[in-house]
């Protein structure tokens, strides 16, 4: 009874709280990191060095006036931000944050549930997230959002293919679809899959940038092109949900990259005995550190690269990434068969 209901509910509570607070501070971190790269200081007024800026942002979004355009489809307009946010949050259900801990005499795993199709579950929630963007743009009954949403959803479904093909390569190497199984496979092989499958890792990261509408693939929400893309007509709390969903998606992409390619919660060189002194660091700390490295990479890339034009973006996805990903699967399967 307790094992079936109470413990998962507690885990969900902790993970959701953690994710929401991380998203809030990720927004601040993005502004700070971009500022430092551009040799300026970023938000400094609210609280010491601007650490209370997220609180100010949340308050602003709460009290803003909630505008619904005339002739917008009211139900779909309200539902669209929810449809974007919910998949971003429920993807955290299968991400393993660490090895099991022993609390109160029980062995509790550090993921909400370890289903045997974990990786496909993440693909499925990502494909549901596309709906919110299509519906948000279409239901606003206005030109810029419609164009932005069509472009964004076409981009998302194109790069979703490339990303799923890289997952296939990882599955061929690990022999299991469950996330915990993949981390264990990296432990058994003794090598992180980023070094065994560098092509798949690069393609996954580029696809992850495109999936979350981040630079350099952020044309659908580029201010200079489309006002604000599919969320132009949204304000206040509804816009906050879109915003939250984008950063939560970033965290999911980073967490999945950590689990699949960088050994999840394993320490560096997990099989080398002489480095056993590093074991005092708890497994979830390794996981969080690696995820933050990826998040920093997201922010760094945003400050560094110019934006891709839309046709260049689609050409990259279809004509370059997908054939390379398929070739990677063939080579991986061949090598695995021969070894």
């Amino acid at each position, binding site marked *: 009874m307790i094992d079936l209901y109470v413990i998962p509910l507690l885990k969900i509570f902790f993970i959701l709280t953690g994710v929401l607070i991380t998203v809030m501070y990720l927004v601040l971190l993005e502004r700070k990191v971009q500022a430092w790269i551009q040799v300026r200081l970023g938000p400094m007024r609210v609280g010491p060095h601007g650490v209370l800026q997220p609180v100010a942002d949340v308050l602003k979004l709460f009290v803003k006036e909630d505008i619904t355009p005339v002739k917008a489809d009211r139900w779909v307009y309200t539902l669209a931000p929810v449809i974007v946010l919910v998949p971003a949050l429920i993807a955290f259900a299968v991400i393993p944050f660490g090895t099991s801990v022993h609390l109160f005499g029980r062995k509790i795993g550090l993921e909400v549930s370890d289903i*045997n*199709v974990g990786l*496909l579950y993440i693909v*499925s929630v990502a*494909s549901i997230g596309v709906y919110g963007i*299509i*519906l948000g743009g279409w239901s606003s009954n206005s030109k810029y959002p419609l164009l932005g949403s069509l472009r964004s*959803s076409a981009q998302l479904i194109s790069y979703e293919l490339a990303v799923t093909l890289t997952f296939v390569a990882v599955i061929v190497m690990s022999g299991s679809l469950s996330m915990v199984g993949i981390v264990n496979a990296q432990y058994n092989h003794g090598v992180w899959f980023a070094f065994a499958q560098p092509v798949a890792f690069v393609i996954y990261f580029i696809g992850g940038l495109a999936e979350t509408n981040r630079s350099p693939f952020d044309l659908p929400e580029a201010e200079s092109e489309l006002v604000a893309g599919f969320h132009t007509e949204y304000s206040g709390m509804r816009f906050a949900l879109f915003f939250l969903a984008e950063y939560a998606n970033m965290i999911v992409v980073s967490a999945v990259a950590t689990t699949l390619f960088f050994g999840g919660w394993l320490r560096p060189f997990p099989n080398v005995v002489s480095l056993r002194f590093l074991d005092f660091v708890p497994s979830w700390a390794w996981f969080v550190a690696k995820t933050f490295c990826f998040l920093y990479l997201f922010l760094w890339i945003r400050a560094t690269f110019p934006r891709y034009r839309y046709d260049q973006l689609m050409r990259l996805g279809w004509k370059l990434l997908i054939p390379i990903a398929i070739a990677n699967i063939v080579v991986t399967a061949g090598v695995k068969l021969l070894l």
Partner: protein
Amino acid sequence: MAEALTFYTLAGLILAFAVLVITARNTVHSVLFLVANFLFVAALYVLLGAQFLAVIQVVVYAGGIVVLYLFVVMLVNLKRPPEAHHDPRRRSRLGVTVALVVLAEIVVIGLYGYVQPAGPAAAATPHLVAQNIERVGWALYTEYLIPFELASMLLLVAMVGAIVLAKREL
């Protein structure tokens, strides 16, 4: 007990959303009800222990095919929807009555002709591994390899066909 409750809830929601699909005036609402229907059918598959197929249902059906429908609905955005006025040649009430009579017949046959559960089928896969996805994978790649390859050729042909049909000029 919990299984019965889950089944009846899911079945009720599936049928409710299906009825909404065919009776909604606005086509976009119809498409959204179809998505909800597919998601609940995927939940039903999980209840039946077919987790792989549940995820495939969400990825392919709800996340791929219905997105395609949504795009086409948005591109074919008409000012005057097809069912704007009543057509006397179409006898909807007669059709619905006949369909419900057929449904009642099927239900009666199902209730009176209950099949006794057979033992494990003799043609089961030789490797009786525990997990669902492994069993499906074994069957798909050993016994049913030729249909698998034919299905991939069918998808290739459909892809080429769809692109050719939808292009503005060849």
